């Protein structure tokens, strides 16, 4: 079992100029990012859509790597997205799944069948040509350069410790410093696009 913050710290040096969609890892990624204007921390516009959004970005910018930190609760809402991604075969798409086994922001209730799901197997069955699963930081760290060094789409399931939030939402630490509008504006400026 690894911690999300440690996993993102390991990933940081390999980011280069990729677009990073940090999903529910966003609150930790802010401590490691070196290209914040290429980060797309959107919070949670509508649960279940992060993989689709990342796919759209990847299809629109095939020259640039897109790295998504999805979460298992999101993915379970949209498992059919995996077949769409697999069919599109975006070579620049790297789909990393943060799996803490539960709905951490609502008190830690387990996702359905949490202890028995093999997300890498599901991704491979959907048609991803490469899929991995790690529950230990050392293994992930050792294989990450090879994973990112080859074309996508690739799926990487990462079993992490649950960090459950029980404080009322209004009392939780706010880690986002930009509005969604500003995030989009900054990304488009980085990509040389208009407003």
């Amino acid at each position, binding site marked *: 079992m690894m911690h999300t913050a440690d996993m993102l710290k390991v990933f940081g040096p390999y980011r280069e100029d990729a677009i990073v969609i940090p999903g529910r890892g966003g609150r930790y990624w802010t401590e490691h990012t070196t290209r914040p204007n290429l980060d797309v921390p959107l919070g*949670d*516009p*509508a649960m*279940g*859509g*992060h993989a*689709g959004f990342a796919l*759209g*970005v990847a299809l629109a*910018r095939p020259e640039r790597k897109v790295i998504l930190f999805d979460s298992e609760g999101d993915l379970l809402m949209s498992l059919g997205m995996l077949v769409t991604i697999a069919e599109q075969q975006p070579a620049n798409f790297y789909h990393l799944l943060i799996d803490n086994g539960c709905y951490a922001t609502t008190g830690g209730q387990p996702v359905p069948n949490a202890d028995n799901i093999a997300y890498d197997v599901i991704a491979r069955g959907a048609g991803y040509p490469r899929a991995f699963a790690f529950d230990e930081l050392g293994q992930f760290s050792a294989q990450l350069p090879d994973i990112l060094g080859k074309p996508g789409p690739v799926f990487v399931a990462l079993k992490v410790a649950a960090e459950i939030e029980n404080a009322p939402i209004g009392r939780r630490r706010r880690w986002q410093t930009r509005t969604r509008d500003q995030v989009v504006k900054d990304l488009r400026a980085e990509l040389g696009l208009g407003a």
Partner: protein
Amino acid sequence: MNDAAVTALSPETVLGEMKKNGVTHVVWLPDSETNWLYLLMKAEPSLRLVGVSREGHACSIAAGLAVAGGKPLILIQNTGMMESGDSLRGWLLGLNIPVVLMVGYRGWTRHGVNQDSAATYTERFLMAFGINYYLVENDADAPRISIAFEETERTKRPVVVLVGDEYHGFNR
């Protein structure tokens, strides 16, 4: 030539509107009447088709495409549009995405009594979300598609084109 052929919205017309307005990706889930359009889109080199297995997925994909410089079109049926409510809210309205949704208007009729609840709730749904829409029934209405594209760019909001000829328009 029968009445249906005279009044139909032709798939060639729809494809022409897509090209005229610079669509790069069609994010879609087939409904019962889009087979001819599918064949034309598939043969069109300027379009990339992105098939989804549930209509809500089209909203987040289109949002990503639009944010990163693409020009998506969503092509779905009214049933799926209603199923996509939260994705419409969060990914399209919430992120101010300029995208046209062409929506097959299942159950639409000008004659007699509506017998399909999909039609009953379609316009009510759009009004509830504050999404503007245009009805297109035949080729003569096709300029409304370009009007929808112009409006979505100007307002940075999704705009819907209801295809009210769904039951025979795309099949010949």
